């Protein structure tokens, strides 16, 4: 991280080259759980982005103060504090999102993306770069969630951006003239078709994620990049097991990468 990097590059790497979901395979739980609709995906993405940027800033500010032995618990406390703030804000201003995301809103605390970025980037870089890195990763996360959400919602529910007013309520009542997403169900039924419900069920989530991952791998391969793998980068405790890495990862993560 010593060489000089442009802020623009730090931002864009999170979008494509190091997309947290499709390239680094981080944060798979929310990716699968909340992407039954694009609205939920956007809500989750924005909430995680806010936490990511804020925690990256604070952790970067404190990087010289926190002793390295207790850094993981310290990071978790910082992250948990921001998650609590976001959770309270969402409960107060976007209650429908709070119901839709359920436990996955507080579970941002253990989202590997946030702890992973704290460990891999914010603890080694200056505040500005860490904030930009957080923003880029957050936007990349949101984009990947939206991709999953779009496929699953259109195929599985026959709608697109349904219930978007639940999010737009932040900006006042009836933004965009109360437009509440598209609904293809009527159009579909006139030609005798129905949405494929399996796509909004858990099984469809795994399937769509697999296909998206394969597509991302294909594109990456075309550019001479390795396939996305579950490795030590996707393990939030990687920092912890550095001392006897070979021993520890033998049965766990190395298996997956082999």
């Amino acid at each position, binding site marked *: 991280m010593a060489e000089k990097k442009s802020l623009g590059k730090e931002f864009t790497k999170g979008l494509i080259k190091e997309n947290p979901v499709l390239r680094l395979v981080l944060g798979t739980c929310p990716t699968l759980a909340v992407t039954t609709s694009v609205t939920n995906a956007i809500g989750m993405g924005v909430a995680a982005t806010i936490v990511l940027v804020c925690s990256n800033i604070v952790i970067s500010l404190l990087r010289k103060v926190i002793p390295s032995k207790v850094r993981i618990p310290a990071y978790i406390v910082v992250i948990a504090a921001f998650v609590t703030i976001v959770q309270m804000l969402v409960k107060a201003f976007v209650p429908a999102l709070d119901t839709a995301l359920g436990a996955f809103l507080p579970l941002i605390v253990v989202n590997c993306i946030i702890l992973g970025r704290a460990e891999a980037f914010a603890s080694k870089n200056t505040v500005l770069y860490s904030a930009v890195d957080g923003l880029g990763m957050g936007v990349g996360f949101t984009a990947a969630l939206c991709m999953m959400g779009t496929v699953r919602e259109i195929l599985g529910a026959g709608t697109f951006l349904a219930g978007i007013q639940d999010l737009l309520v932040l900006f006042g009542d009836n933004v965009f003239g109360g437009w509440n997403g598209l609904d293809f169900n009527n159009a579909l039924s006139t030609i005798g078709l129905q949405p494929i419900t399996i796509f909004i069920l858990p*099984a469809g989530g795994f399937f769509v994620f697999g296909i998206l991952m394969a597509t991302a791998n294909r594109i990456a391969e075309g550019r001479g990049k390795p396939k996305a793998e579950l490795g030590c980068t996707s393990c939030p405790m990687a920092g912890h097991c550095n001392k006897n890495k070979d021993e520890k990862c033998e049965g766990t993560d190395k298996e997956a990468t082999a």
Partner: protein
Amino acid sequence: MKYLIALLVMGLLTNNFVLSKFYGICPFLGVSKKLNTAVGMSAAVIFVMLMSTAATYPINQLLIKNDLEYLQTVIFILVIAALVQMVEIVLKKFMKPLYNALGIYLPLITTNCAVLGVVLLNVDEGYTFVQSMVNSLGAGLGFMLAMVLFAGVRKKMENCDVPEFLKGLPITLVAASLVSLSFLGFGGIVEGMGLI
């Protein structure tokens, strides 16, 4: 009693923690390549889930009493992290065989969303202590069932001729999708057994 059995069956089959609620996907994908690691990891998860449920229940009562519910997330994750560390130290000192079996997985579990997930779920649903413990046990056993089944599927998959573009993680996810699909078949089993 009926309700407790229903909770257990739901956690194990109909609302499987991994395959239908998507908690703990990272270990599910990462540690399921071999059967023995899958069993070790899930045993550690069950252990930590039960311990943290037992520890957070009284703490939560205390928080509610003092109108501090908003601190739940912060306190729970700290309690779980501290507990995991403590359990690791105690096991290392006094129960060497158990430590050898579960030890390497313990630090990985602090940030496993299944553990915090089940604790938060118990609070959200307003379960009593016994119900919370049974729910956690069901969730943990469900995690183990999914891991063990999936380890078997992956073992079979090693000998398969997978299309080039699906090799690696994508085919693992597609396989997970099929395992999850099979769990849909359990839908309605709780109602069918007359448990609710």
